[in-house]
């Protein structure tokens, strides 16, 4: 359970060092992205207007307020990552993304891509958007603005975290480990409650 303080963009070496249960705090720039943005990029074939090499992506649909050309943050939190699972391999292979921040985790295809390309999944505390919003210093830029609140957001962050490594580049998947342990307990629980199974 090591702790890391990393600056973006992330290198492959930095990501390969991470193991599940490690904790990470980030500095630099991260990108907010979610369902519609990813459908726009992959299904509707629109190339991201900014380099995502070594990028850290955050699954979010922020509440922002636009005053003139400036985007002010109102509330930036994290959404469930399972819905965006099918895009992760493409993000890593094609665009060089190194880390996904989200909640709930992703599945085998994403885990395989993380192993192959050197990526990881960083779990944030879902629902803790007040803390998260404070850790975002500034909304630097909004790409694909017409998709707001599901555009591509460039966010400057400071002391962003703590994030828990929940999927690493060595094939470890913390959610699956936790689930496997829970499943082992099921027969005993059913028995206690008199449930036939």
């Amino acid at each position: 359970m090591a702790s890391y303080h990393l600056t973006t963009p992330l290198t492959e070496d930095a990501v390969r060092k991470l193991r599940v249960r490690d904790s990470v705090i980030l500095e630099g720039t991260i990108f907010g992205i979610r369902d519609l943005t990813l459908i726009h990029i992959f299904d509707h074939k629109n190339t991201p207007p900014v380099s995502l090499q070594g990028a850290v992506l955050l699954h979010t649909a922020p509440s922002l307020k636009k005053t003139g050309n400036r985007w002010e943050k109102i509330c930036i939190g994290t959404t469930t990552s399972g819905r965006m699972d099918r895009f992760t391999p493409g993000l890593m292979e094609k665009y060089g993304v190194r880390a996904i921040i989200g909640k709930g985790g992703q599945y085998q295809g994403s885990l395989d891509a993380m192993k192959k390309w050197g990526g990881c999944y960083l779990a944030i505390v879902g629902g803790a958007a007040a803390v998260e919003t404070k850790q975002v210093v500034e909304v630097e830029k909004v790409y694909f603005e017409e998709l707001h609140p599901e555009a591509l957001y460039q966010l400057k962050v400071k002391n962003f975290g703590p994030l828990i490594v929940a999927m690493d580049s060595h094939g470890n998947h913390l959610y699956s480990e936790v689930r496997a342990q829970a499943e082992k307990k099921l027969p005993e629980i059913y028995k206690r409650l008199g449930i036939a199974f």
Partner: protein
Amino acid sequence: MVKFSYQLVEDTAKELYIRALKILPPDVREALKKAYEKETNPTAKEIFKTILANVDVADQEDMLICQDTGLPIYMVKIGSKFPVDGAQIAAALKEGAKRATLEYPFRGSSTHPVTRVNPQTSVGEGLPILFWDFAAHQDYLDILMVPKGSGSENMSAMKMFIPADGVGALKKFVIDTVLNSGANPCPPGVIGVGIGGTADLVTKLAKEAIVRPIGSHNHDPLFAKIEDELYEAINSLGFGPMGLGGSVSTLAVHIEWAHTHITLNPVAVNTQCWPARRARAKIYPDGRVEYGF
């Protein structure tokens, strides 16, 4: 003196939505604090620390607790000594929810189910969701506002069992549903269970179950006992806060029930995330508004 008006209902509906997004009910705070104290897994403890810090930051800096502003639900109870026009109340609640979204402003999360066009108002066809009930002998209008987030709502499940499956099948369904939800609904939250009724009623009962204060039990000891059994069972699964492992996997299990058909045995699960958000207002005929939870 302010007198009751439908404009007052609209203003209150707006205020309730914003309050629900910012001020966590005291029972939920208490349950989260206890969970932090009880938790022994270091990762889980760290998560509870962030959760508690988040509640404090939202209080101190007047911020939203979570970015998912949810779908607005208003559960309305009309006192029998308070004759009002339901249609005007419905219109006022819709306008209030819309104004909260546009005037605060926060992200509107409602969308068209086919075109996926987001009107950015939190309302739309069939929204806000309205529950109607009546309170005998009361002289107030009671409105409970619940912004329902999708992380937890997406994990809802309902099943029509048959009488031969017995009550064991219902308990197993609840445990399995919670296990399959894993980390997605931002655990540890409140697990709402509906038992009995029809397909629609059982689902509604599960929703009514999630808004009960933590620490409350079903009035019927038979169902209170099942609540305790399921609470203990789910917390022994060990998936912990945010599904990353730990000893506290749920803050409460609540059951609401109804009689059902002799051939039916329905069960529904509605999950609520750890910020089990809700805000209540009682509006009196003299225009007084009392806020609570």
